[in-house]
């Protein structure tokens, strides 16, 4: 029975209408429970971050005596100014802006590098006939097996031996080694209709032209999706930057967290406000990217992990 049948409460249909209302009741109750569950879930996700944000608008003394805050204090600008523009807060030589810049360099450098390198490799694997194709395929895809964490020590030694400690190259390039991007583009290229390459060949497009004129424009959405995921992934790197950068001028925001902790261990009143300010700054860019480009992000995430 559709909902329109249930309306029109004339005297003859009152009986049916009340019966419908009786049936509707548990339905409405279930809806209320659903919303309660979702609101509880949303608060579970939201409250800790809101608290961090509100706390970043209070003085350290307030926080120290009254605990974390859920109201807006008057010292927001002050804390963010200290955290972002005054060197020697948590770190001795760099300010938050420098770390913010480094985070962008890592996030963008990593995602762009990864997209270029993996697109080229996937293009070779899908669209070319050559002798060691299978070997190359396996050589690249075996890297999906071992996360950086389990080979961290020798990786560090090799990069150190190459003199790449405290360089952007050393920070970014080794992270590109895994094949997630290549795998993703391979899947996508395989889904591109075969007839397109045939039409292009008849139209006189060689390998380079086909790549630039047809394949790259076709992959635009995919590139955007993978860029978002890789940007967030790169921005959020912690272990590798922690061991690769000892020079503070190369610190990223996420890496800088560790320096905040050092201050916490000290005996004085910790600089809660500044710490929370820096944490908020460290999460805003990736969160914005994910929220604004949500549909691309979800698509990329779900497809790439297949």
């Amino acid at each position, binding site marked *: 029975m559709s909902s329109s049948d249930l309306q029109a409460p004339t005297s003859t249909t009152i009986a049916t209408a009340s019966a419908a209302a009786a049936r509707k009741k548990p339905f409405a109750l279930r809806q209320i429970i659903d919303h309660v569950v979702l609101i509880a879930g949303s608060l579970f996700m939201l409250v800790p971050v809101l608290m961090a944000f509100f706390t970043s608008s209070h003085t350290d003394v307030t926080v120290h005596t009254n605990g974390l805050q859920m109201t807006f204090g008057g010292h927001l600008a002050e804390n963010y100014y200290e955290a972002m523009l005054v060197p020697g807060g948590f770190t001795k030589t760099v300010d938050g802006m420098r770390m913010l810049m480094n985070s962008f360099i890592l996030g963008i450098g990593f995602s762009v590098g990864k997209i270029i390198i993996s697109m080229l490799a996937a293009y070779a694997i899908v669209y070319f006939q050559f002798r060691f194709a299978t070997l190359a395929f396996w050589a690249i895809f075996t890297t999906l097996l071992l996360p950086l964490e389990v080979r961290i020590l020798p990786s560090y030694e090799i990069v150190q031996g190459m003199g790449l400690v405290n360089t952007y190259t050393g920070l970014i390039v080794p992270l590109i080694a895994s094949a997630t991007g290549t795998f993703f583009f391979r899947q996508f290229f395989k889904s591109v209709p075969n*007839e397109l390459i*045939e039409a292009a*060949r*008849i*139209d006189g497009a060689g390998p380079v032209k086909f790549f630039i004129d*047809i394949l790259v424009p076709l992959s635009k959405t995919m590139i955007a999706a993978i860029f978002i995921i890789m940007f967030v992934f790169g921005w959020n790197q912690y272990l590798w930057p922690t061991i690769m950068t000892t020079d503070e001028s190369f610190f990223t925001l996420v890496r800088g967290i560790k320096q905040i902790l050092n201050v916490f261990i000290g005996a004085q009143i910790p600089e809660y406000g500044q710490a929370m300010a820096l944490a908020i700054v460290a999460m805003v860019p990736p969160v914005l990217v994910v929220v604004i480009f949500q549909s691309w992000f979800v698509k990329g995430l779900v497809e790439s992990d297949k």
Partner: protein
Amino acid sequence: MAKVVIDNVRKVYPNGTEALSPSSLSIEDGEFIVLVGPSGCGKSTLLRMIAGLEDITEGTISIGERVVNALDPAERDIAMVFQNYALYPHMSVYKNMAYGLKNRGMPKADIDAAVQKAAKLLHIEEFLARKPSQLSGGQRQRVAMGRAIVRDPALFLFDEPLSNLDAKLRNQMRIEIRKLQRELGVTSIYVTHDQIEAMTMADRIAVLNTGKIEQIGTPAQIYHTPASIFVASFMGAPPMNILDGHYNGNGGLEIKDLGHVAVDHTLEVTGDIQVGIRPENVEIHQAEEPHTIPIKVDFLEELGAGRLLHTTIGNTPFIAHLDNEHQINGETVFAHLPARALHLFDASTGRRV
């Protein structure tokens, strides 16, 4: 414009399967030839070898006077229309049509003139700025044709171009493609699995089966004198009735479950043969007459322009075509198979005798 010669061309895939056994076919300048056959018969493989999308294992293909075996698709002076249109989804209709010309280094003004001319011919001028996704199936089909036309090729290749369209549009496009081809006079090779397309469009048809060309001929030749049982039953709807028979020389033809039929010419073979008759050649009588056999009416299928009478002879399904004037009463009628309408095939080779 060019003559196309396919000389003993063979295709073997790396895994050893032979997609096409050595086949030869000579296509005249301006001719519209249709390669027809069931899926997997090798027709697409042959077309793709002509296009240069597949390597030729053996034999030579020449377009015009040039052997093209070693040439890239782009150098063969051909244009191809694909089943899924294969339009570049990110380019406008205009750019789709211009892309091949641009790659050839044609001056911008000439490209524009060619695209406008083709667009006018196909009535797609108003869509030139649109993306393929904004077009209907029929419009995309036209754009795919347009992309082929602008190249002004020596040879058009069509790979089942109408199979994604609905029935009505397919009939319409069939006629349009043929008209256009006559106007342009470009030699064309058209691949389809649809025998109606083959019959209605072709100057000549090549029927393929299991990697072999079974018969080459005009639609009338293919229909009226099929060279094999395969051709006889593949071409024509409803298909030709095929019955088992035996020939013992001197005009003595026995059809299984039907009895003796007189044939006026002597056959070269004796022994088991297969007898074919098209549904429209079966004569149905209400009452018993000389040389008729009683048959039971299982089912009458209304076509509007006539009716099909379904029955079985022995265990073999059998169909007769009836005109609208032809009245049927009762469950049993009498069929006559005129000797001149019988197609006789060697039972062991399947070839016409």
